[in-house]
């Protein structure tokens, strides 16, 4: 089974600035790869590049079998990105937001179930996006992620803003997703929690990967869920 992510010397420019300056990264199916590293290292940019949102201007970049430098759009519906900001329409209620994105992604998934999994109780579901608390926004974003059927999850500091219960629930969801064949790349600064979750930890700094390179050493063992 070939790699879900395959980057060789990938470069991404933000304006004129090389936010990614030669990244080598392979991710095997079923892995949970943790990206960590100092602020401004390029984690967010790397995740956005993997989603095809930031053009890769040099090097090789293949995700889910699609060459990012040629047909980035092709993989869109297969990746689920949880970014720094939640994608919510201010004037739509949580429920309406989640339903809209689910429909847009042609996901058959059960929306209410997704919201329940994200821990959004019935009161919050009818509050419009503009009035949510920080954590509630994150949860709504999670619900969208759950409602859509993505094969590759790209999570940018997923725990930030979630309360204790929410964090545990999220970790459980991630493990479950991986068990059912999803691959996960997660950027996080909460090392203890995140590294407990991850099957492999990669350090990003100065726009590239440090130390034990991101390349796979031969065969990688997909995670077994206990």
């Amino acid at each position, binding site marked *: 089974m070939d790699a879900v992510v395959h980057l060789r010397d990938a470069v991404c420019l933000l304006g004129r600035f090389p936010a990614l300056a030669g990244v080598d990264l392979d991710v095997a199916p079923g892995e949970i790869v943790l990206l960590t590293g100092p602020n401004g290292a390029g984690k967010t940019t790397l995740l956005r590049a993997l989603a095809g949102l930031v053009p890769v201007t040099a090097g090789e970049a293949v995700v889910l079998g699609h060459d990012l430098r040629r047909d980035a759009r092709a993989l*869109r*519906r297969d990746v*689920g990105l949880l970014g720094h*900001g939640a994608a919510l329409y201010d*004037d*739509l209620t949580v429920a*309406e937001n989640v339903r809209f*994105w689910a429909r*847009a992604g042609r996901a058959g998934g059960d929306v209410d179930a997704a919201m329940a999994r994200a821990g959004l109780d019935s009161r919050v579901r009818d509050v419009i996006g503009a009035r949510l608390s920080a954590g509630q926004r994150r949860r709504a974003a999670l619900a969208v992620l759950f409602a859509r059927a993505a094969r590759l999850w790209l999570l940018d500091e997923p725990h930030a803003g979630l309360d204790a219960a929410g964090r545990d629930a999220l970790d459980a969801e991630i493990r479950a997703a991986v068990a059912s064949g999803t691959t996960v790349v997660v950027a996080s600064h909460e090392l203890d929690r995140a590294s407990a979750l991850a099957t492999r930890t990669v350090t990003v700094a100065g726009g590239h990967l440090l130390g034990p390179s991101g390349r796979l050493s031969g065969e990688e063992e997909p995670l077994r869920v206990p």
Partner: protein
Amino acid sequence: MFRDALLVAGKDLRIERRSRVGLQQIVPFAVLVIVLFAFALDPDRGVLTRAAAGLFWVAVLFSALLAVQRSQAVEGADGVRDAVRLSGLDPAGIFLGKALAVAVQLLVLEVVLGVSVVLLYDVEVVGLGVLAGTAVAATAGLAAAGSLYGALAAGLRVRETLLPLLLLPVVAPVLIAATRASESALTSTSFEVSAGDWLGLLGVFAALYVAFGLFAYGPLLED
């Protein structure tokens, strides 16, 4: 594509229904513009009656600007733009949907505005059919061009000011054609024009912009 278009248009219209921006703010604004023109041109009233059509369309144009701005501001929340690109929605569908929503709002606006012009500038309508035709064609053109350029300007942080600059030249022909076409439907006109050709021209422009939008919107989202 059409499925996506309906989904998006429905979303936008629901947002409008909830926030009432168009109804409670753009429409009154348009009426105000009409009033202001009237005053700016006061010195001799003949002008008003003769320029009624032109002023009507200029007012519509400015309101269209606001409508498009709003329709883009809705997508402006952080993360939404990315989400749209990842959503898997057909770009052509998104374009159609947003244009559709804007068009619906503009049509409502034009009715209200038309009535106030008739009352305030005392013009007399002879060719209602022509007017209706003009309105539909022109609105299609405005909405299409607006949505297209709206998306173009939206990516940049300065959209609220960039949009008018981009849009005005593009819709100017529509504006002119619409003006001439409607003039022929008002007795007030000082000279004779044949609505036919102008209507035709409007149709061409509308078709052109819609087609162009369908094809160009995808690449635009990619920026």
